[in-house]
Each structure stands twice: as structure tokens, then as C-alpha cells.
């Protein structure tokens, strides 16, 4: 386990300890593999440093299963047709445009680059 400054944290690193916000709410749990979105979340909350490493410590069964399902749950499936997904949304609305960019990033497995 080692302390990593947030500007040095990279996607794929494994969190060694829970990250909590000022109110004590858990932002990210120990054992997860950091994605670009996770890093954006940590930046957004002003987290300065985390305890993380490059390789997972052998996780127990529950955290392994949780990490695996989290990954499948957070990725929009490629087989959902984007046009169908957005057909009810006003294409000119800023929120639609933002959600469309985020959807594209999630589908492409990117987390931290905004295409705007």
C-alpha cells in the first residue's frame, strides 16, 4: 500500500482503502480498479491523495464479485442503438448533448475525456 497524489493516480490502479468525503460518505470502496470516471469523481470532491497500488491485493470473494458486477453495470452495452436511446430527447438541449457525449465515452470505455 502506498499514498498516491491524485495528480499521479492512473486508471487501473487498485484502491487499498475506502475514500470518503468530508461528510464521511464513502465515495469509492477499497478494492476497485480506478477508471477515468473515478478519477474525475475524486478530483470533483477535492481529494488530494489516495492509498492505492498497481496490482490488486488478493481480494476476497465478495469484493471480487462486487468489482466485477460494477464494471458490467457501469458500461452501456454496445448493442443498444444510440439513436433509439436518444429518440425521445431534444437533440438541441444542452443536457441531451452532454448525455450523448457521456454515453459515447462509456460505450467506448473512456472515462475522462470530454469530446466537446
Amino acid at each position, binding site marked *: 500500500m502506498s499514498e498516491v497524489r491524485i495528480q499521479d493516480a492512473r486508471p487501473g490502479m487498485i484502491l487499498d482503502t*475506502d475514500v*470518503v468525503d468530508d461528510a*464521511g*460518505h*464513502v*465515495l*469509492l*470502496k477499497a478494492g476497485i480498479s480506478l477508471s477515468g*470516471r*473515478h478519477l*474525475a*469523481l475524486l478530483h*470533483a470532491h477535492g481529494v488530494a491523495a489516495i492509498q492505492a497500488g498497481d496490482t490488486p491485493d488478493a481480494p476476497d470473494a465478495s469484493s471480487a464479485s*462486487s468489482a466485477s*458486477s*460494477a464494471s458490467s*453495470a*457501469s458500461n*452501456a*452495452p454496445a448493442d*443498444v*442503438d444510440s439513436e*433509439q*436511446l*436518444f*429518440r*425521445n*430527447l*431534444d437533440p438541441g*438541449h*444542452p*443536457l*441531451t*448533448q*452532454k*448525455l*450523448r457525449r*457521456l*454515453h459515447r465515452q*462509456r460505450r467506448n470505455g473512456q472515462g475522462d475525456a*470530454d469530446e466537446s
Partner: protein
Amino acid sequence: MKAEVQELVGDSVQLASLPAVVMRAVDLLNNPNASASDIGQVISEDPALSARLLKIVNSAFYGFPSRIETISRAITVVGTLELTDLILGSSAIRVFAKIPNRLIDMEQFWEHSLYTGVVCRVLARHLRAPYTERCFVMGLLHDVGSLILYRYRPEQSRRALEMARSEGLPLHEAEQQVLGFDHAEVGAALMEAWRLPESFIETTRYHHHPSGAKQFRLETAAVHLADVITGVAHSTASGTHQASPLESGAWDLSGLSVDIMDTVIAEADAQFEDARAAILPRGRAA
């Protein structure tokens, strides 16, 4: 309320009824003369409910620093109102687990609902709304009317689902065309029958048309926005694979910036698995 909706809910509420202990807790919550310890006593009379509640409040989803061992402690830490809401949410999921339907995958249905609840909770925190956990349960339960329709109007519901998919209509509009009413009206009527607080009824009734809400407008906007965002961010579970239409007034009312969406979705993703472990029954209702 439309007579047919009333009749439908009147028929279904026989089966889709909340446990007596939950109804008593809700009644006490609505009673200004009832104290927190009165509610705690009612909950403590049901060991299974107490155990379930303690499991939820001790879960990573809540992330309290020390373990909560008793219902009275849970009331102190979580609050009477939000604890009762949690009872409602988790009990409602169990009610519908007992009345399956053949039209949709219940696991996907509850995943959509749960993700909506989590997004609603995240939005509520960003909006600095009071009672963020209540917003979570509002999001969790916003579509329960669909489960009544799938169970008691299966043929018309199937036609509405097909029409929504083939013609690209929002599901609630297809339901209006086929049935003359939609799942939001049915859900609100069911919540009235369950004597839930007015805020649940209002947010459920207007979650597709938040401008129609006469009270709890910010909460209704939050549920509406959470439903739209979930339709995109968690699209596996939308049923029709299309996001619900956005009412721009709800977005304006929220006062949020689109730049916050990365954070909102990242937070929702981070909380979703913990919420699922805490709230959805193991082995899942199907």
C-alpha cells in the same frame, strides 16, 4: 382519479399490500403526535424487518463509521422519516417479488429503479435538497405502477411495450393510447392506497410531466431528471431501450450545470453496487 385506475388499484391492492407493520409505521410517520420511539417500537416488533433495516443502514451504501446495533440507534443516526422511507422502499420490492409477471425481467426492472433512486439521491445532494434518502426512495419507487399494469393488464401492457419499441413512442404515451392511462397514474393511485406521504404520490404521478406538479416541484424535477439520466447511463434496464423525454423546465428548475453530469454519473456508478447489495433481495425477485 380515473375510475378505471381506481378499480385497477382496488383490485391489485389486495395482493400488492404492504405488511401491516409497515403501514403502522407509515401511519405513525403521518401522525404529528407520534414520537420517534413509537415508530421504533413498531419496527422492533418485527424481527425480520428490524434485521433487514439494520443490514441496510450498516451497508457500505450508507457508510456510517460505526456499527448500528439497534433500531433506536438507527432512528437517532438516520432519522425517523428517512428510516421509515427505507422500510417502505425495501418492503415494496418484496411485495412485488410475490406477484411476478411474464412481460419483463424483474431484475432489470429493479436495477433501473435502483439506479434512478441512486441518481436521484446524488442529484438531491447536489441540489442541497432536504431528505436525500427520501429522494432515493422516491426514485426507487417511481415506476411501481408498471408492475401493476404488467400483472393485471398484461395484454394491453404488451401492446404498449411493442408500440413504444416499434413506433419510438415514450412508454407512458403508448400506455395512454392503449389503456387510456399510464403507469405514473397507476403508481400514484397505488401509493394513495398505501397511504404514503403526499410527496411520494406527487413525484410518482408527475415523473414524466414534472411541470404538472403543484407541490414538491424540486423533488419531482429530481425524479424526472434521474429517470432521464438513468435511461442513458443505465440503458440495459429501460425496458424499451429509449430514454424518457426530458421536460426542459425541470432542468431549468434544478439550476444545475451540465458540467456536473460527469460527477453525478460517476457518483451513481460508485454507489450503485452498494445500493444493490443493501436494498435488493438476494437471489432477486423474478
